[in-house]
Structures are given as structure tokens and as C-alpha cells.
């Protein structure tokens, strides 16, 4: 793609900003990066909007001359902190890509345990392995933009990147998933007796899970003005245990449960 020095694209006569972008992964499943190449239909158009200069999962060439750095994954070790800080220095815009980067993701469930030694022993026995508490990218360096989701929704990333290239403001929905769920005319999970965090979780996934008849786990974190306390109360009234509610809320790290 670097070979393709595509002539500068324009929109309504205004040249697009074709940013040099880099992808970096920290502690994660790398699924969000995979999502970036997962929309086969629009992939080429998408790639022509940016110049990928660093994408270890897909290419051998590397360069530090990037403007936008997409950071996938959470931060758990000192060497990761160092690497992240170096990236922050290079990047004009640092984007937290996916729930691990935004909130710590499922990885932060480790932080539930006070005793890290116990955690290590659970997995590695007596063998020494370096690990610390899981942190979101924003807890280590300033973040310019968050792209929520576990996994991220490709359509949303495409829109965000297109808007960046066009110079439009980036807007993410402030309202909750419930709004999208209704537009999709799903049967409400609560009618089916299942728990769902749709009413308090930030929309943008097009109610991915409820569309499948599965309750939302809040992977995109809280909606603006989410009434979490009352939601807990409702769930209790609907017969869900404290544990079920908590396990939903703390799963991806977006909701502060303590």
C-alpha cells in the first residue's frame, strides 16, 4: 500500500488528510486489529484513506514516522509502559482501540484479586513471571480518542477514520445500546428472563448481542449519564443475584464497580 502513492483524494474540493497510521498491540487477543482487516468489502477503500506504516501482525516493514497510533490491549508490565510512552512521543493522535485499551478489558478481572502472587501461582505454579496490575492505556499516557467495544465494530472504526481524514468531528453515541436494540425490534431480554446491560451501556455496536438473543455485557462501557445504581436495583427486582449483576458490570472494566 505504501507502493501505491495514490493521488491525493479530495472531498468537495478539499484534499483529505491521509494520515500515516501505526497499529500496536499490548496485552490483548489482537481481535480488534483483526477486525480492521475483517471487512473485506470496504477494505481497499479503507486502506486508501490512510498510509499504514506499522502493523506487525500484517507487515514486515516498520517505521516510526506515524501520526496516528492505534493502541490495542491493556498495560500490565513495565516494558509495556516504556514502549507505550515511546509511542505516545511519536504519535500526534493516540487512539485506544477496543475495550482492553479503553478500560483494561477482560484482562482487568485479574485486578479483582488482591494477591497477585496467588494469581501467578494459579497459572504458572512456582515459576517466576513478571506481572503487575492491569491498566487501561489512558491510565498510563494521555489518550486522544477511544474506540469502544470487545471487539470493536469495524463500521464504526471506518467511520471514525473517514471522519479523521475528512476533518469532521468524531461523534460516538452518548445514548445506550437499548436505543439500538429497540430500533432492531428485538424482544427485550428481560421479557425472556435474561440479564442485559443494554440500558446503561454506550451504543455504537448496533445492539450486537441482543440481536443474537444474548444480553449485553457492557463491553463498550457506560453510556453518558448512565443510571447504573438504579439499573442494579431493577436487576435485583427482576430476580438476578448480586453476583450475576456484578459479573456483568465488572467483565470489561468500563463500569466502576467499587
Amino acid at each position: 500500500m505504501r507502493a501505491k502513492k495514490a493521488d491525493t483524494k479530495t472531498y468537495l474540493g478539499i484534499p483529505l488528510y491521509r494520515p500515516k497510521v501505526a497499529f500496536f498491540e499490548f496485552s490483548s487477543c489482537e481481535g480488534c486489529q483483526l477486525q480492521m482487516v475483517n471487512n473485506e468489502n470496504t477494505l481497499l477503500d479503507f486502506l486508501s484513506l490512510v498510509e499504514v506504516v506499522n502493523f506487525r501482525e500484517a507487515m514486515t516493514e516498520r517505521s516510526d514516522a506515524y501520526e496516528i497510533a492505534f493502541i490495542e490491549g491493556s498495560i500490565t508490565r513495565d516494558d509495556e509502559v516504556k514502549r507505550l510512552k515511546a509511542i505516545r512521543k511519536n504519535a500526534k493522535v493516540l487512539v485506544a482501540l477496543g475495550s482492553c485499551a479503553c478500560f483494561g478489558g477482560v484482562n482487568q478481572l485479574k485486578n479483582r484479586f488482591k494477591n497477585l502472587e496467588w494469581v501467578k501461582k494459579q497459572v504458572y505454579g512456582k515459576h517466576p513471571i513478571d506481572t503487575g496490575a492491569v491498566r487501561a492505556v489512558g491510565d498510563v499516557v494521555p489518550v486522544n480518542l477511544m474506540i469502544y467495544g470487545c471487539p470493536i465494530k469495524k463500521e464504526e472504526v471506518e467511520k471514525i477514520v473517514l471522519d479523521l481524514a475528512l476533518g469532521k468531528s468524531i461523534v460516538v453515541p452518548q445514548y445506550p445500546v437499548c436505543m439500538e436494540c429497540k430500533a432492531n425490534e428485538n424482544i427485550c431480554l428481560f421479557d425472556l428472563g435474561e440479564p442485559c446491560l443494554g440500558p446503561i451501556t454506550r451504543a455504537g455496536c448496533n445492539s450486537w448481542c441482543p440481536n443474537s438473543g444474548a444480553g449485553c455485557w457492557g463491553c463498550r462501557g457506560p453510556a453518558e449519564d448512565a443510571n447504573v445504581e438504579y439499573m442494579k436495583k431493577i436487576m435485583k427486582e427482576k430476580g438476578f443475584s448480586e453476583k450475576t449483576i456484578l459479573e456483568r458490570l465488572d467483565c470489561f472494566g468500563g463500569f466502576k464497580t467499587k
Partner: protein
Amino acid sequence: MIFRVFEKKELKNFFEVLTVHNRIVGPVEAGRDKKNNPIYSFTEVSDFNNIKLDYTTTKLPAKRYFLPFHEDLSTFRIDNGDWQKTIDYNANQPLIFFGLHPCDINALNKLDKVLLHSVYPMPYYAAKRKNMFIIGIDCVPQPFCFCRSMGSDTALHGFDMFITDLGAKFFVEILTDTAYNFLKNIKKEEPREKDHVLYMKAVSERNKKFTTKVDTTDLAKILDMEFQSEVWKQWGDKCLACGTCSNACPTCYCYGVEETVDIDLKGARKTKMLHSCNLIDFAEVAGGHNFRAERHSRLKYRYYHKHRGFVEAFEESLCVGCGRCGESCLSGIKVPEVIASVRGGKVK
């Protein structure tokens, strides 16, 4: 108005005649809830047996057929720095609504006032509304509906024909010539005295079943007076600000507009999305100022729009009393209770 009666089995024939050349939307069972009660929804149907004419109420109104959740208002072709705009009102085939309850018909009538008969009629709505053929049917009042209090338990216009169950037969009111012509395809007869008696009996039976009442006397004025009432704050604390009430409401029509550029940069579109006044950004303006930053002020606004502002503008409320918003609200915020609390000065 012209009245007729016909044997029950004729309705199926009628459906079958209609389905040959038309798209039909009707109440069907979309699933079952955890107590195994059916959940109904309006969907396109081609088999008469799938239509559940004895449905209680649908979770969501038939809104997607006249006010879609998402709709492109216009599209643009972009080339050489210039643009061309195309408008499509997104209605290309007429639709038959088979079995709308009076409340839902009245909801359309109310929407007509603002979207059709006001200073700027909305063509997207008009194009769909003018291409509807509506077969109304009497409902069985549910414990949560209060349409009677809102004066929308019967529909006087806004449909093509309306049927009432008389036991062995259906009683039909024919409002339009289209309906009259369509009905030529089935066997029917003029109602006799005993049919009238049966009809009146059916009506009074139904009337007895309205249980929930809302006191609407002077409501617009009382709302005006109680603008600062404490009860709003209490309801606001419960509100999830999820927009479900608006989505479930047959008359909520507020929306937002977003413009997007196609990823290939060759086109763009302006899309309308139904919004809800309970959502945080409803009244937020550039620079971040929010005229209704608090949940309770937004919730209150929904009541003011429906029960006061609309009344001032059109001499009737924008609520038909279908009770859907209260039924789908997880917090259980129900119109009758909210209004009673405003009148009584406290939440029960």
C-alpha cells in the same frame, strides 16, 4: 358511514384476496416471554393463520412502516468537488394494515396533525401515510391501557374499514370507497336489527373492561403549574434515560439528523434517526451547553410535550393511552402514575 356484516370465515377469504396483489402487515406472535405469554409484533404476513387478531397489544407500534427508525432523507452524488442531491421519500408500494387497534389508528391521526396538516408537511411521512389501507379491529382492553381517558378508545376516522367481533359474525364499518370496492370480493350483508343489538352489546362489554383511568381534567394547566414540582426529580432518579419509552410509543416522532460520507467518497447521505427527548444529548448545543442536562428535566419534557404543548397546539394530547411506554420501561415509569403524582404532589 356504510355498515355491513359478514361470516367470520369470510375474513380469511378477504385476506387471501388482498394478499395476491398487496403487501400486508399484521399482528403476529414474535415469540414467548418467560411466563410463556405471547409477544406480538407488527410484521409483514402472507399467511392468514399467522395473523393473531385476538392480540393483546404489540410491544412496539407499527411505527417502522410510517416513521422508520432510520431513514435516508437525501443522498448526494459527489464528483469533481460538486454535488447533486437526490430525494427519495422511501415509499414505493402501498401497504395494508390488517388489524390495527383504535389507539394505533388514533396515533396516526395525531401524527397527521403535526406531520401532514401543519405548516411544513413532512413528505416522507405523507408518502407512506397516503399509501396505507387500514383495517381496524376492536381490542380487548388491557390492565395497563388508559386510552379511554385519552379519548382514543374508539377511532372515528383515519382507517378504511373497521371490524368488530359479534361472535359468529364480523360487523364492519366502511369508511372509504376503496374498502367498499375491495369488500365486493366477499359475501356480506346489510346488518339487521339483531346485529345492531349484538354490536351494542359488544361495545358495552368492551367498555366494562377499561380499568385504568387517568384524570386529564385541566391537565395542561396543572402541568404548567407543577413545573417545579418535586415529583419530577423523583421520577428522574428512576429513569434510565434509555429512550425505550419513545421507541415504544406510537406517537413519538422526535428525531436527529446525521450526515455521513460514503467510504469511497463518491456519495454522501443525510440520515434521519428517531431520537428520544430522554436521551442526554437531545438539547445539547455546540460548545457543550445542554439545555436539559438532567434526567428529570428530560423526562418532564416528554410529559410536557405530550400533555401540554401538543394540547395547546392541537387541542388534544399526543398520548393515546396505549400504555406501551410504561410496559416496556424497565423502571416501571407509567403515565397514569406519573400524572397522578403530579396532581397529588407526591409519588405514591
